């Protein structure tokens, strides 16, 4: 994986990309949000102070999902009425991009999947069943959330969303899917719930009193 570099247009610091296809990233020194436009980086804003959170995962954490090694390169911290959760942006050796969500230490890995004909948000209720790609899912929750902050490399050019409606879907065999209704077209992410041990994570955050 090539690791392109660039200089921060604001403070000149060296930005080393962990992912060649990163569309946005943040400068670790001046906390600017930088978007890649062809060769240059454009400063588009400043990263909001991320609230302290307790995810054991951090940028540069490494892991393995289904025999494929991945690296954590970025994250979105979501906030909703009952609290918050992290969506860690992970990239694999072949350049593929995925999401590792961490909600109070419950983990799921999912990938953006093209799926036409997704139902509109108002058609969904908890416990309703939905068939996606031949698999039957049950809607488990509908969550109204917002971006609390971003960090690192992400595959898109926005960094602040006020209203994101998520529909979570699960199956009997721990498959997981989520529909993101924040865009004009709903986006489907499909994957599965995973146990911490299955990911073989390394380079994790340290916790006082825990080895």
């Amino acid at each position, binding site marked *: 994986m090539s690791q392109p570099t660039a200089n921060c247009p604001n403070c000149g610091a060296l930005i080393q990309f962990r992912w060649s296809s990163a569309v946005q990233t943040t400068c670790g020194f001046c906390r600017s949000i930088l978007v890649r436009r062809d060769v240059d980086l454009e400063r588009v804003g400043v990263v909001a102070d991320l609230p302290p959170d307790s995810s054991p995962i951090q940028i540069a954490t490494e892991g393995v999902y289904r025999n494929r090694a991945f690296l954590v390169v970025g994250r979105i911290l979501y906030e909703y009425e009952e609290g918050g959760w992290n969506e860690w942006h992970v990239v694999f050796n072949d350049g593929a991009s995925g999401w590792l969500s961490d909600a109070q230490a419950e983990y799921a890995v999912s990938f953006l999947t093209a799926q036409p004909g997704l139902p509109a948000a108002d058609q969904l209720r908890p416990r309703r069943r939905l068939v996606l790609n031949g698999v039957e899912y049950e809607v488990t929750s509908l969550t109204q959330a917002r971006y609390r902050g971003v960090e690192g490399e992400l595959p898109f050019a926005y960094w602040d969303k006020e209203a994101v409606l998520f529909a979570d879907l699960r*199956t009997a065999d721990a498959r997981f899917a989520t529909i993101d209704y924040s865009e004009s077209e709903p986006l489907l992410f499909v994957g599965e*719930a995973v146990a911490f041990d299955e990911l073989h994570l390394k380079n994790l*955050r340290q916790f006082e009193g*825990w080895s």
Partner: protein
Amino acid sequence: MSAPAQVKALNCPSCGAPLTIRAFEHTLSAVCGNCLSILDTKDPNLQVLQQFKAREGVQPRIPLGTRGKLRGDVYEVVGYQERTITVDDVPYFWSEYLLFNPYKGFRYLTEYQGHWNDVATLRNLPQVDTRGPRPVATLLGEKYYHFQTASATTTYVLGEFPWRVRVGDIAEVRDFVSPPRMLSQEGTEGETVWSLGEYMTGARVWEAFGLPGSPPEAVGVFASQPSPYKGSAKGVWLLCLFLLVALLAVAQAFLAFSRQEQVFRGNYSFSPRSGGEASFVTEVFELKGRPSSVEVGVNTDLANNWAYFRLALINGDTGQAYDFGREVSYYYGRDSDGAWTEGRANDRAVIPTVPAGRYYLRVEPEMDAGASPVRYELTVRRDVPYMGWFWMAAGLLLVPPAFKSLRSVGFERRRWQESDYAGSSSGSGDDE
């Protein structure tokens, strides 16, 4: 690289008592143990969300902050709550210990009357079938039978929680069991959460957390408590069947290989009215082979009469006698219920372990003084299998599995007594 997350020390805004926050930023609310105020830990001023009253001296059996090893991972007790349900106006409460590991997340330990459960939220969704007599939830091919549905109210909290806890919170809880596991569905209108629990004994909990003293005694049978008899009942009955078949084979073998040799037959009559000596001796006959049984048969023509036969099998050479008595009676008639009979006109007696030799019978009949005479035949058969032993053996072989099944049924009945189905037959029914 983020700095290591820190354990926080705070002071209660209400009473000033110190609090420790152990679950880092996961904690949304924490309880001041001193004044029982529930504080909003995400508020810089630690706003008091609720202050509740409780009965005196509630102490979690596992103190907050204790660490223990479950399923190979270390967890710390960070929260404690008591939840109460009311059944037939009687309140029952159980304890829930919130366990935390920064990498593995949260788990629960529940305790009810000395029974413990290791519970975690489920990643998979069980399927519930409500068509039958009682709902059945299926998870990964295993069937869980509905045990109880109840409204649980939070009546006491201590420590910290990753949600805004409140005394008085009510949740509908539906429990399904497949011992030693229990599926619980808990929820409100919008969202249901499934969790899976596995039964644990107090001894294992005490060992995992290194607690002093002994755990509280378990009372009664818990919903998901594994039966000490289950799983083995089927195997025992199968073994019983094999043993009964073996017994049958042994019986067949003895029936086939025993001599069953008739060595003597004689016909006699006796009239009580004629005087004189009633006793007599038969001719001598030979009993061959190893020491074995001798069957003495008396076949009479008694009708509404009885006769008593004093018999002795005497070895003419050694002078050894086997002395016994047999009463033979046979009555019959008709009454309002129809024809009836009582007794039998023919009798068989088996003398045990008689060595080979030349023997004769000494016979002394006896009847009522004025009774009509009796004609009878005496037979002697050598080496006759004694059927009584086979029946006794069959009975003895059936006792252990029957006992086991009885105890298993008793155990299950006690289990289901606490359920919504008390008074009807046990749920799953099968012995596996």
